[in-house]
């Protein structure tokens, strides 16, 4: 695995931009890029590019700690292989939309795969980070241990912050043993019957690790000890299936090539909505992928039901800053000059503020 520590070069680059801003020049802003594999999902690279992709390599991996500390530019694919060789995996279900996708990009975007609904969430698996803030300082938060309440939890805050609070340099992530087996069954289920199924799937915890509905078929994945998974599958019935969960996780399924693509997030147990456009139901109905839908209408209806919409392709919906601008103030606390990913900050965090 290639190793290179570019912390100091990255720091110099940030300092250069800060000096230019102080000298009264246009700050311009830095567009942080890892593998740039998410640019096709409404995360465009704007302005002057700060390339983190060369900053890579494992810093610390001890299998009996269930912890991995790694430089942010390390490709996810290499990490998955490294962990698999030790019979381990990430504690989160981390999407990898391209071969070049990096761990830093994954943390910054904060996306989760189908197993998030069953406890495998990225924000809960990040236990520490080292980052460059908007004062050009290298700072460390969290650490290498699971339980840590010293200071505010500023590392978890980076998950999904889209690099608007700083440049991630290293991240420490929690790991888990790989399950002995992972098996999928499919069932012919009309969309209208899904709410009853979601009540049934509750009893499949903690073995259930995926629940997706597509084209009249429900796919359920169970993971764990073979001795436990097998009898439970037999009691469920249905047919064995080779449904490609990684294609769903990584947004590589044909479905995700649509020109208009959105994810609708609804509270668990919310009544199922009718959608115009092609749909794929994920997370026991708490996330629905919609291809070719009417995004403003989706946004309106999701909002009424207590949810929200993330547009991955098509015109992005602006996220208003709730309250009197706390998101803007948090951003300023990390990045007073607003140099990191300013275009994303405006669209995804601080937009719509009066």
């Amino acid at each position: 695995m290639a190793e290179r520590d570019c912390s100091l070069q990255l720091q110099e680059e940030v300092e250069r931009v800060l000096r230019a801003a102080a000298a009264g020049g246009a700050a311009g802003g830095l567009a942080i890029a890892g593998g740039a594999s998410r640019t096709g999902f409404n995360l465009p690279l704007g302005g002057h590019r700060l390339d983190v992709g060369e900053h890579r390599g494992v810093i610390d991996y001890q299998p009996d700690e269930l912890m991995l500390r790694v430089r942010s530019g390390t490709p996810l694919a290499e990490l998955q292989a490294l962990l698999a060789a030790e019979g381990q995996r990430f504690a989160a279900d981390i999407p990898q939309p391209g071969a070049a996708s990096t761990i830093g990009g994954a943390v910054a975007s904060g996306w989760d795969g189908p197993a998030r609904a069953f406890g495998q969430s990225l924000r809960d698996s990040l236990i520490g980070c080292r980052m460059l803030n908007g004062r050009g300082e290298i700072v460390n938060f969290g650490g290498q241990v699971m339980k840590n309440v010293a200071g505010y939890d500023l590392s978890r805050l980076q998950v999904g912050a889209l690099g608007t609070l700083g440049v991630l340099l290293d991240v420490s992530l929690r790991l888990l043993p790989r399950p002995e087996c992972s098996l999928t069954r499919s069932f012919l289920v009309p969309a209208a019957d899904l709410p009853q199924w979601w009540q049934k799937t509750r009893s499949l915890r903690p073995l259930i690790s995926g629940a997706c509905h597509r084209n009249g078929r429900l796919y359920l994945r169970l993971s764990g000890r073979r001795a436990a998974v097998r009898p439970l599958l037999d009691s469920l019935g249905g047919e064995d299936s080779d449904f490609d969960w990684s294609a769903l996780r990584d947004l590589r399924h044909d479905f995700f090539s649509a020109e208009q693509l959105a994810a609708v997030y609804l509270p668990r147990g919310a009544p199922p909505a009718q959608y115009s456009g092609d749909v794929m139901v994920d997370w026991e109905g708490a996330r629905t992928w919609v291809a070719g839908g009417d995004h403003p209408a989706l946004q309106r209806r999701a909002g009424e039901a207590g949810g929200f919409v993330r547009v991955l392709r098509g015109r992005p919906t602006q996220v208003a800053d709730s309250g009197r601008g706390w998101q803007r103030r948090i951003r300023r606390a990390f990045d007073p000059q607003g140099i990191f990913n300013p275009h994303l900050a405006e669209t995804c965090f601080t937009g719509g503020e009066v």
Partner: protein
Amino acid sequence: MHSKRDPIVEALCRILPGDRVISGCERVAPFECDALPVYRERPRAVALVRSEAEVVAVARLCREWQVPLVSRGAGTGLSAGARPDAGGILLVTSPMDRILSIDPDAMTARVQPGVVNLQISRAAAAQNLFYAPDPSSQIACSIGGNVAENAGGVHCLKYGVTVQNVTGLRLVTIDGEVLTAGGDCPAQPGYDLLALVHGSEGGLGIVTEVTVRLTPQPSRTRMLMADFPTVRAAADAVSAIVRAGVIPAALEMMDALAIEATEKFCHPGYALDAAAILLIDLDGQPQEVAADMAVVEPVLARSGATRVQRAADAAQRELWWKGRKSAFPAVGRLSPDYYCIDGTVPRHRIGDVLEAIDRFAARYQLRVANVFHAGDGNLHPIIMFNGREVDAVDRVEHLAADILEYCIEVGGTITGEHGVGLEKIDQMAVQFSDAEIAQFLAVKDALDPDRLLNPGKLIPTLAHCQEYRMLRKSDG
């Protein structure tokens, strides 16, 4: 009843009924400390609140008059995070104690901050659900305090700490603004305010409502107890279990002194000749538990356990856990005073740290009992002392500082679950650089620009950090 001359008390009485405003030196005395009574202070006034609207009104009052606002729940905290400020208001949320709703389909419960931790599991039991984080104080501590401290517990190894088990909350800022964080959706847009509030020790706002995630009760739980001839062997067994691919629901360790104390106290049936014991809960589906047992038992034997026992029934399991849970009062019987810290270290360094604690303790002529969350690397050294001895408190403070700094040195942290509060404010200067402390303060200022919320706790000032570092240096 009230000292009417104090304008703050008068203003509070306009917001709250008189019987929920407490002032006067004698009357506020019961609120002068949390469960770390070395730190005491009497607040200017105590406000017992019943609703979010009252919290908003009290916050606005404090902002307007620029007086400190310290909030607390049941006061079971162990780091003086809820010690009042002499010039300020102590806001008590324990009267907000209603469970607002339980949704078995979404597997969540919406509760007010004063609801007692264990009450949630009791209320959800009919639906076969429970609230997983179980701090030792769970019969008394409130969920609002749990959020403020990001409380842990015995079963956090598998089920996570508070932050992993809360899906939403409402937060009142010092401006009286109500922010909502998270909700019923499994994911949220925007910055993760929900994560930021956990463990913020009342320094960013006051939590007025919490939506917790409920977990299905496991259909089977089995408990193992293993005796070891050395502390090091027990510590190594902890890593070996995890390496073998098993995540127990709980994995706890007690050393000889803790075993001796608890045996005398409640006779759980621990081996008095063992240097250490491990207590292990395995839970889940019956077949899963059986498979895990088949892995863990041989691992314990290979790691040098002299005896491995299975709890015969629920009664025996309860007794074994009772010993563990009584460890603190039990040690309290052996020693006039005791003091507990909770540094956390990487699992594979537990053996090194326990040996170091022994060395440090000898240096200060003190005895230390160890009973802790071994699976998480979350230590709880209990320092035994006699407060009547002239320099005892001083020696205890130095020993605690040495232990915590050693935890940082081996890649750990000064606190895993008890919080920084006032107690560990000095050690923050060792764990973090000035740039990091300044970043924490900038985040606080974003939500509490006048630093009125729980001032002087959790995040030290830069001047304080520099002073402490100088002091430790001159200590050698």
